[in-house]
């Protein structure tokens, strides 16, 4: 088991390095840098001015070098610019070059500086992750139990009318992307044209103070999309368990149906959905981006859109490191959990 986890972590680090390098490469392509220079400097810069601007700030070094500096395995650049000013990657504003540390990258805990929000990337990400964490917590709290209940109810009598209607319902929720269901929810529950006005159409106020009124719609929107899939997995695994030998034995023994479902079937039926729930995290991440944009909730997904839209390289890298990390860790947990929960599978 230990060796398995170690190997998985090795692959995970390799994956994370590859992915961040891809993001780094794509954001550092020359047209992107040119756009960046023009938004930072001014829009009427000539091509030569753009080149000197970028060169003075170390952007025209080879991509691998820049990546090493960002990661913190290569010493940060010290460049004497054409304007006579010496700039160093690691020097804080106002700090003399000589006193600046040699290495400053992610490994040293320095995530860089966001050019759109004008703050340290590390701080921004922590704050935004907190906000999104609250959202995710409520999503999970709504999604997982309702999905499991739906799946178990549908799967305990396969082919029954209840099964058919619940299955159709879960197909419909998976077929409704967040931007469609969100808009429909807002139109029905939040606008005065329909007249219900039960909830608020934006979640901006939920950043300070979460209430049922301002937070239910975004949570419902994300949960609805993920719910159908988990419910279908639970149904499939429940239906399989219900046809197995030991359930038949219990039935013939005269155990009552609710008892069979609760005591005998449920535990085994929930192994497969566990991995699916963990693997839903990357999908939830997508949902979070859409829903945070839709409901104007300034969390992690909103930051991703902001950073990507403005080619804010270091913020975007920070965001992608975190999201890739979330994806990989949940994959690892789901694998380990699967092995742990299912005694029939062994790693060696």
């Amino acid at each position, binding site marked *: 088991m230990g060796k398995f986890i170690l190997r998985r972590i090795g692959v995970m680090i390799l994956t994370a390095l590859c992915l961040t390098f891809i993001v780094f490469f794509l954001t550092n392509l020359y047209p*992107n840098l040119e756009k960046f220079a023009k938004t930072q400097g001014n829009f009427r810069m000539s091509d030569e001015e753009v080149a000197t601007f970028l060169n003075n700030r170390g952007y025209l070094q080879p991509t691998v070098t820049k990546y090493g500096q960002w990661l913190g395995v290569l010493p940060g650049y010290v460049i004497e610019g054409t304007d006579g000013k010496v700039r160093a990657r690691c020097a804080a504003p106002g700090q003399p070059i000589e006193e600046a540390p040699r290495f400053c990258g992610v490994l040293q805990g320095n995530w860089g500086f966001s050019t759109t929000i004008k703050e340290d990337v590390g701080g921004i990400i922590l704050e935004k992750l907190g906000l999104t964490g609250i959202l995710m917590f409520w999503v999970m709290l709504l999604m997982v139990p309702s999905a499991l209940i739906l799946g178990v109810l549908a799967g305990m009598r396969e082919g029954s009318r209840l099964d058919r209607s619940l299955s159709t319902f879960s197909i419909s929720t998976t077929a409704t992307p967040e931007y469609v269901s969100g808009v429909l929810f807002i139109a029905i529950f939040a606008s005065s044209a329909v007249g219900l006005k039960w909830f608020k159409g934006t979640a901006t106020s939920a950043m300070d103070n979460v209430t049922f009124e301002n937070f239910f719609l975004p949570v419902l929107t994300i949960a609805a999309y993920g719910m159908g899939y988990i419910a279908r997995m639970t149904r499939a695994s429940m239906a399989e368990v219900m046809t197995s030998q030991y359930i038949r034995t219990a039935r013939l023994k005269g155990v009552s149906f609710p008892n069979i479902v609760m005591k005998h079937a449920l535990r085994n039926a929930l192994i497969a959905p566990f991995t699916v729930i963990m693997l839903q995290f990357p999908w939830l991440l997508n949902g979070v981006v859409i829903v945070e944009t839709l409901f104007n909730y300034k969390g992690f997904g909103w930051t991703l859109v902001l950073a990507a839209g403005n080619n804010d390289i270091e913020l975007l890298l920070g965001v992608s490191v975190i*999201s*890739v990390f979330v994806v990989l860790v949940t994959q690892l947990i789901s694998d380990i959990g699967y092995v742990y929960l299912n005694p029939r599978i062994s790693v060696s």
Partner: protein
Amino acid sequence: MNKDALSWGAIIGQMGIQFAPVLILLVISFALSLTFKRRLGLYGKLFDSTVGMIGLALVLFWVFTAFFAGVFDMVATHNPLDQSAMMKKALPGTPYSKLIGTPDPDAGAYYLLGGDNLGRDVFSRVIAGSIKVILIAPFATVFAFMVGITLGLPAGYYGGRFDTVLSFLSNLVLAFPVILLFYLLVTPEIVQTGIPVYMAAVLFIFPLVFLVILWNSRYHTQPMKRNVYLAITLVIGLWVYLGMAWDADPLGLISVPPNVLVVFVAVVFVNSPTVFRIVRGLVLDIKTRDYVAAAQTRGEGPWYIMLWEILPNARGPLLVDFCLRIGYTTILLGTLGFFGLGLESESPDWGKMIIDGRRLLSANILHIAIPPALALLTLVLGLNFLADGLREESLRD
């Protein structure tokens, strides 16, 4: 302009008239299919399941709509790009009028579903949006399947280092949050660098490779027949390939605008790793069967076994996934539009229309966001129901 606005009943009636050719064709195709359903194989069996029939009806509805709108210019009432200052945020059923200039005499008399914030007809824009989706989503899915199958078959069949490397690469792409990937790939700046063209050059070669191997593995004992098939495939394939990927069609017939190409490439790129994983898993399962062992004993080549023994036996799950994946691709296209990526600012795109209408929901203007949302919903729902019907019927075999 002294015409009155239409009531909701009249609007629905008018829409029925606009959709008449679509509905007639739909009824005809259903009547024919129901009559001959015993002779139509799996497609005919679909008509035994209610969910499958509903799904098929929804999908065919949009396919026919796109067909009539795109080929005969029929269903829509107005030009989707035509703006009218009089019609800004007009309510559904408002009579069509223009502040400046004379209205187009061929255009309909009413904005059936109202006007958007620039005074364009919402109904016509939804119809125009369907053309794009129906054109791109199935083709992108076919390409993703070609890539996934061509790589997944040998990965599952041979295993070993080839499989390890490809699985690692596909996990790499799958670990990317899709929206981040879109934001990185589908920008005008990336189009400038030419990366989408190179990606297209790599991804679009797979269908060609697939077909060449397919013919060669089957007919290599009959060189005459093989050469004819290969020649036809290569001539047509290379022609389409040059036109689509490199925009260098010698006849100048096939060309894809760069912003459509980048969307297409991004969608294929996101979908193919999942297809790869599904195919690989199916091959791992099927290659232990007796008929594969029989073919091996017969001395058949590995590609013959993969393409003519294993692949046909994996068709059920692949067909179901194909339907689901078209739906997912439609969702992805909507997502791209939602974030305003990869399209001209004016073009009618369901995702773009939804986010534009979203901004007016708080002002209680619902008719701009709801129609495209319902259009996308019904199409994806139809595809999912269709997939469910297919799954049920193919399991029954």
